[in-house]
Every structure is written in structure tokens, then in C-alpha cells.
């Protein structure tokens, strides 16, 4: 394990066992050399002579439980002793040197488990086969006569046993098996169990080291400030005004748009930065106001040209010829991810190497970003991950890391920890995209929907983040939950005529993936509008949905489950009103039913939410419950409070005082129904956030007769109409 006395030289050379106080870097990382004496069975499994099992992780842990879930995957096939398991992160540099042995590092889109379950299980199975083979070889018996259980290989005919630790070194020298069969789900004993998380203990004692907590000998701390207007630049700054302040070592310009103070401590750097005179050149974006953006979105609602996401029949004609029409316009604002841990990265840059220690949701993308900023090949750089103090999508992109490297590059050979203030985190976010939506339904004389047109107007995430992924200009991610099919968001209704299209209207405020992504507003738009149609035609909202869902049995099953649990159709408690919603996304089918009351003064109380999830395979039911509860906190924060606005080109909300989030007193009871139907792997980190807001909004309508069509609720008077 690490010592606390590593010399600067050892750190600078990135020598094996590079040391941070209280933080151990796996041996052999920075030089890309084969770790010495590590009994590695394969890329995923290391077994020490004393039977300790180290499972390697490519995906990042940010609270969603992926470490424990992936360990369950490997352990299911490895047949090891669960109590002997620890995990370690591999670095993207190690993976690069081994032809991407660990596959994708991306930890987003609720895909950590579902996109790697197959190959990590095979990793566990292959290791078990090799351990059994090694034991059989020791005994000189056929491997087929041996079996493995709980970290022990047993020779059936003689009853002889060998522990994994005793044969690990021999197993490591064997060739990997050609055939690696996996267990049938019916034989699983670890997958499907609510095993406790592997990483809870250190989170209760303050021992877990986050990026913000990293320390190195001789380390300096940098606090940066970017131009508050996106796209703006530094015009000038007066370094001499703060150079003499306590602890200040450097006052730097970082790229074209950022300044930073580097000092002995965070507080010294921040104090000096606050005193630093900076003149910004905001450029044209400095004239953009919230009203400018709103007007642009409004224009898109009626624009002639739009990208088509889903089309059935001729919705325009059906609506034009309809006996009756229902129309409504909805809106969804910019929102900040606001993870509890502000952005940070610790960097050591030299002319030949660059090592970064940071919390990231995508180690490989971090390596690409760091190498580019460092002016070095990727093989001369590496990313050493720590657990994230929240991610929610913010840490899939690396603007903060690039600046941290550019700062360290100006202080060669010295470890520099770059830390954002909360204020910087708030105004330099990557925001939930802003959109509006106009929905028009054509109804026949009996009130049946003959055609539906959903016109979305607003920001495209891909056009900012991955423009090469656009399809002839069209952003396919825009239509999450509204697609004709697919795993990432298939619509659950059959309409005789349907048109869902998107008028792309981008602003200078950078959008990004944000827990739930475009599902969040798409589910509000469609699920609340269907409630409007039900009300306008005198139908029960559940009955209307059921009628439209005949060909979508999985969507319907979760909806029925929450309806039954909440007692839909029976009278709620006095003063309490119900709403319901469903959506499919991230591979999973989810629904929610909410019970709310609204006082005469317009105060909302969310009493209870019932949520159902069909994620195909439920790896760890308790973890799923935790993710469902968490998704409602995040989703209800967004609904009740979440809004960022633009003034003179800059985001106006600067901290939790102006960007409030859900607190304990607002948190409803959440009852989770986990109902895996088998045969597919769905995500769990995000899906239920999709139905949080629409279920509550529909319940608010039931309570007040008021249809709230824009977020957040804090802007609305909920007193009964």
C-alpha cells in the first residue's frame, strides 16, 4: 500500500506506486509496465495467494452501484468467495496498451451493466475455467472431474481441494479457454441478490477519497474562472494586483477564456481570484437574453422545416379533417447537473508525461482530452480515477479537465489540483437542453384520437457534443421515448396517424446529457398532453392509455402494476389526488403513480409515489430501489425547483441559494415495484426519472384543475383555479 512519504521525484516519474496521501494507485500504472508479481488470471480477475480476489473495473462508480453490480456479474461465473472481493479501477492507458482489453469505459446512459454484462461474465467464467484447469493439472486429473465453489476447487472422485489462491499463479500461465459458456439465468445465485454494496463503509467514516480530497507532496491548488458568457474571452487581467497575497504562486491565463490563481491552498487561491481584476470580452453572446431564446423556441414551434422522428400515416391531414382539436404548448428550461462535488482534477505535467487523477464518467474520453491539452501522445498520459461525488452526465465531458491540464502545463513538474468553486460549477455547466413542444390532437366525433402532431423546438445535444453523430443534420437522441422502436426509448402508444418532429434551435448555452436526458421533457410533453385529451373527452386517463397500448404489452404491464398498487379507480384519501404516467427508455419500461394534495394556499405536498420498473434482469433489487428513489429526488428537484436562466449571455443562478434542489421535507414516500420480465438487460439509473414529473403534474391537475405546462413549479401559482 501507499506510504505517505513519497518523494517529489517518485511522483514526477510516475513511478510504480505513485503516492497520494491516503490514496493508493495500483502498482505499475503510470509507466504502462506490467505490474510486478500480480497474479492476474485475466483482464478482469486478479487472485492473490491469500485468496483475496480483485475484480477490475472499467466503468466508474458515482453512487449508482455499478461497482457492486459488475462484481456480482463476474462473481456469478467466477464462483469465488464474495467476502474476499475488492475492486480496482483500470486506467485507460492500461487499456490502450492492451488493445482495449477492458472495452468501453463510458458510464452514462444507464448502460454500465447492460452494455458490459456479457463480457464481464465471460471474464469471470474464463478465470474459473483456468483455475479449475490449474488445480486439475496439479492433481493430474481431468478438469471435467473438478468443480469450483466459493473460491475452492474440488476433485469430485477423491474429495481433494485447492483454494483459488493456491493455484492462481499456475492458472495465470494457462491459455484462456476457447469456449466460455455462461450459466442460464435459472442457475444464478449471485445475480438477482440484494447483496450489500462493496463501498459503503468508507462513506460513513469520511475515509473515501474523492478527487477534491487528493493530496500530493508539494501540491499546489488552482482555482479557475472562465468568462461567464459562453464563447467570451479574457480581455485583460491585472496579475500584479494579487501576486503579493498570501500563498499566491502564479496568476495565469488559461487558453483564451479563462484565468486561474495557483496558491498553496484552495482558500488562498479563491481569495486572490475574487480580488483579481479581470476584464472580459463577452462578444456577441453577451447580448443574448432569456427572452431572445424564448422567442427563438416559439418560432420553431411553427416553422415549416423540421426533422422527423416518428411518422405514421398522415397526421396533418387527420388533424385538418378532425371534428375537434386539442392543442397545448409545453416548455422545459435549462437545468444544471449540480453534483455535490464540484469539478476538479489533479494533474502532474512534464514535457514527457502527463498524469491526471480525477473523477470522470469516461476514462477513455478523459485520456483523449488530457493528451490533447497536454500536447503529448496518449501513450505518454494516463487517467487515474477516483470515485465521483456525483456525475449525472456532467462528468462525461471534460472541459474542466482540459483547463486543469492547461494550468498544470504552466507549472511543469508540480502537482496542481484544480478545483472549481460552486459558483463556477453553476455558471460553467453543461445544461439540460431547453425546448418547447406544441402538441395537437385531432379527435373524431366520439372523442377518439385520429391524429397527433408533436412539434419539438429547441436545443440538440448531439449538435454540440457529437456533431458527427447527427444523421443528415437530424439528432436521433432528441426523440427519446418517442421512437417507433429500439431499446433507448420506444413510444408505448399506437396512434392511427402520428407525426413527431423537431425544429432544431440551438443557442450559445452548451447543452449536455443530464440524468434522463431528453426523456425528461418528452415524457412530460406526451404524458401530460394525453391527460389533457382524456380530460377534454371525458375519459379516465388510465383507460385512455390502455386503449392506445394494445400493441405494447411491456409498457402496459408496468402501468397496470402502479395503477393496481396505488388503487386507481378506488377513492383516494380525502384531499388527495392521483396522477399516472409511463415511459420506456434506457432499455427499461417504467411507470409511476403519484398521490398529491394542494392546500388552499397553493402548497404542494407529494405524499406517495409508486414506481414500477421492468429492467429485464434485476441484478440487485435493493440497488434498483435506491436508484428509483434517487431518480425521484433528481426528477422532482427538476420539477419543483430546477431552472437556469440567461441574462446578458450568462447563467444567472450561481449557487444553491438561487438554484434550489429538493430537500428531505419535500421528499415523498417511494414504493418501488421491481418486475423483471427476463430476456433483456435494461438500465436502472435513469429510467424512473422520466415519469417523476408527469405523474406529479397530472396529479396536480386532478387536485387543482390547473394544467401546468412549464417547469419549474416554483414559478406557478397552484391555488385552485
Amino acid at each position, binding site marked *: 500500500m501507499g506510504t505517505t512519504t513519497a518523494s517529489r521525484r517518485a511522483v514526477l516519474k510516475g513511478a510504480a506506486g505513485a503516492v497520494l496521501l491516503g490514496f493508493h494507485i495500483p502498482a505499475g500504472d503510470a509507466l504502462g509496465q506490467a505490474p510486478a508479481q500480480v497474479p492476474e488470471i485475466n483482464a478482469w480477475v486478479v487472485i492473490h495467494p491469500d485468496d483475496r480476489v480483485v475484480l477490475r473495473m472499467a466503468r466508474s462508480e458515482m453512487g449508482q452501484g455499478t461497482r457492486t453490480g459488475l462484481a456480482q456479474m463476474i462473481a456469478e461465473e467466477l464462483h469465488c468467495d464474495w467476502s474476499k472481493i475488492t475492486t480496482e479501477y483500470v486506467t485507460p492507458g492500461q487499456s490502450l496498451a492492451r488493445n482495449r482489453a477492458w472495452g468501453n469505459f463510458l458510464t452514462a446512459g444507464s448502460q454500465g451493466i447492460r452494455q458490459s454484462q456479457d463480457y464481464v461474465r465471460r471474464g469471470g467464467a474464463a478465470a474459473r475455467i483456468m483455475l479449475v484447469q490449474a488445480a486439475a493439472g496439479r492433481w493430474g486429473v481431468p478438469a471435467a472431474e473438478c468443480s469450483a465453489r466459493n473460491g475452492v476447487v474440488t476433485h469430485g472422485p477423491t474429495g481433494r481441494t485447492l483454494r483459488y489462491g493456491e493455484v492462481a499463479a499456475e492458472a495465470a500461465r494457462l491459455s484462456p479457454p476457447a469456449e466460455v459458456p455462461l450459466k442460464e439465468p435459472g442457475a444464478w445465485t449471485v445475480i438477482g441478490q440484494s447483496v450489500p454494496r462493496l463501498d459503503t463503509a468508507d462513506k460513513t467514516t*469520511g475515509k473515501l477519497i474523492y478527487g477534491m480530497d487528493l493530496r500530493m507532496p508539494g501540491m499546489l491548488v488552482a482555482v479557475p474562472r472562465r468568462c461567464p458568457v459562453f464563447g467570451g474571452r479574457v480581455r485583460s487581467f491585472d496579475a500584479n494586483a494579487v501576486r503579493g497575497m498570501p500563498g499566491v504562486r502564479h496568476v495565469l491565463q488559461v487558453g483564451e477564456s479563462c484565468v486561474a490563481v495557483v496558491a498553496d491552498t484552495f482558500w488562498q487561491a479563491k481569495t486572490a481570484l475574487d480580488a483579481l481584476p479581470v476584464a472580459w470580452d463577452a462578444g456577441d453572446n453577451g447580448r443574448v437574453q432569456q427572452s431572445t431564446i424564448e422567442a427563438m423556441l416559439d418560432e420553431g414551434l411553427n416553422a415549416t422545416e423540421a426533422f422527423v422522428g416518428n411518422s405514421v400515416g398522415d397526421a396533418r391531414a387527420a388533424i385538418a379533417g378532425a371534428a375537434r382539436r386539442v392543442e397545448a404548448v409545453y416548455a422545459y428550461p435549462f437545468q444544471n447537473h449540480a453534483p455535490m462535488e464540484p469539478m476538479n482534477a489533479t494533474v502532474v505535467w512534464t514535457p514527457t508525461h502527463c498524469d491526471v487523477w480525477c473523477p470522470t464518467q469516461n476514462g477513455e474520453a478523459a485520456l483523449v482530452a488530457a493528451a490533447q491539452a497536454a500536447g503529448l501522445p496518449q501513450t505518454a498520459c494516463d487517467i487515474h480515477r477516483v470515485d465521483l461525488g456525483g456525475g449525472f452526465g456532467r462528468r462525461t465531458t471534460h472541459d474542466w479537465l482540459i483547463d486543469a491540464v492547461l494550468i498544470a502545463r504552466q507549472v511543469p513538474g508540480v502537482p496542481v489540483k484544480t478545483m472549481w468553486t460552486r459558483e463556477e460549477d453553476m455558471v460553467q455547466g453543461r445544461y439540460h437542453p431547453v425546448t418547447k413542444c406544441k402538441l395537437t390532437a385531432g379527435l373524431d366525433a366520439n372523442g377518439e384520437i385520429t391524429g397527433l402532431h408533436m412539434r419539438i423546438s429547441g436545443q440538440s445535444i448531439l449538435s454540440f457534443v457529437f456533431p458527427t453523430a447527427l444523421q443528415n443534420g437530424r439528432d436521433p437522441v432528441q426523440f427519446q421515448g418517442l421512437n417507433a422502436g429500439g431499446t433507448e426509448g420506444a413510444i408505448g402508444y399506437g396512434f392511427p396517424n402520428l407525426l413527431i418532429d423537431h425544429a432544431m434551435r440551438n443557442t450559445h448555452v452548451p447543452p449536455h446529457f443530464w440524468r434522463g436526458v431528453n426523456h425528461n421533457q418528452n415524457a412530460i410533453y406526451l404524458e401530460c398532453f394525453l391527460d389533457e385529451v382524456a380530460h377534454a373527452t371525458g375519459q379516465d386517463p388510465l383507460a385512455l392509455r390502455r386503449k392506445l397500448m394494445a400493441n405494447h404489452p411491456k409498457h402496459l404491464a408496468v402501468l397496470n402494476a402502479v395503477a393496481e398498487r396505488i388503487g386507481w379507480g378506488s377513492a383516494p384519501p380525502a384531499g388527495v389526488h392521483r396522477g399516472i404516467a409511463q415511459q420506456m427508455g434506457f432499455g427499461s419500461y417504467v411507470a409511476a403513480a403519484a398521490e398529491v394534495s394542494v392546500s388552499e394556499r397553493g402548497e404542494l405536498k407529494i405524499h406517495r409515489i409508486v414506481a414500477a420498473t421492468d429492467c429485464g434482469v434485476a441484478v440487485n433489487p435493493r440497488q434498483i430501489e435506491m436508484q428509483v428513489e434517487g431518480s425521484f429526488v433528481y426528477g422532482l428537484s427538476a420539477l419543483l425547483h430546477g431552472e437556469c436562466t440567461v441574462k446578458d449571455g450568462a447563467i444567472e443562478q450561481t449557487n444553491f441559494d438561487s438554484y434550489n434542489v429538493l*430537500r428531505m421535507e419535500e421528499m415523498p414516500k417511494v414504493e418501488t415495484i421491481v418486475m423483471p420480465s427476463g430476456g433483456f438487460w435494461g438500465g436502472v439509473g435513469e429510467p424512473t426519472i422520466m415519469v417523476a414529473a408527469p405523474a406529479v403534474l397530472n396529479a396536480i391537475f386532478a387536485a387543482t384543475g390547473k394544467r401546468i405546462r412549464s417547469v419549474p413549479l416554483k414559478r406557478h401559482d397552484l391555488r385552485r383555479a
Partner: protein
Amino acid sequence: MAKLNVNGRVVEVDASPDTPLLWALREHVGLTGTKYGCGIAACGACSVHLDGQVVRSCAMPLSAIAEDQKIVTIEGLSPDGSHPVQVAWRELDVPQCGFCQSGMIMAAAALLAATPRPTDAQIDEAMTNICRCGTYNRVRAGIHRAAGAGAAG
């Protein structure tokens, strides 16, 4: 040079008097279990005990703290993680990312010391810390569990 009594130990801190207690603890004393979340006493990630009361250390300058005031951080709540709140947290798997949990645990421990059997309303009033992952319901359950285990004792 300020003198602080932290977790039963007197430490000298070479920091300016305007330095918030949070940063003295993290950067001078070397106790990083107490977290920075907002710097304006709005989120509670920096919660520590000062003479038994929970305070938000990010907005409390060293100049406001007397030498004889006893500061307890998450690292000093118990010698081995055995405080009933910590035990309950592990039993219920309360933390998700865990970043806010030092503050949550310190706030919960202070609540239980003053109110051994808190009602839900008392928990709502005392626990104003922010958690973005969404552990609130498990925090509440953890407090009730710790109360049942005699956290105040």
C-alpha cells in the same frame, strides 16, 4: 497561528483568521472527510460539531472559534465507525455517491443527541442537507433505526 481542538486533539493552524473552519480542517489539519459543497452554508456537506452543536464549517471563520471550543469531525465521531448512526447507515446501505454523507451523518448524530426519538417532522426540520443522488428516504430510515439502537446513549 490559531489553536483548534479537533477530535480531542489540540492542533495549531497557520491560516489567516478569515479562513473558514472547513478549509482549515481540510487543508491544514488534513481531515478531508468534511466536504465542500457550496461555501455559503446552504448544502450542509461541511457539517461538523462545535461543542456538540452541528454547524456548517464552510461559513465559519477561524476568528469566530475559541481555543476551548470542541470541534468534532466525521473522523472523530467514533474511533472505529461504530457510532449508531454509522452502523445504521451501513446496515441500510444509505450512501450512494457518499459525498454528502459525512455532513448527513454529523447532522443526524447531533439531532439524535438532542432528540433521541425524533419524529418525521423533527427529522425534516433538522436535516436540511442536500443530497443530489437521492438518499433522503434512507437517511430518514437510518435515523429511525439509529434512534431505536440508542444513538443518544
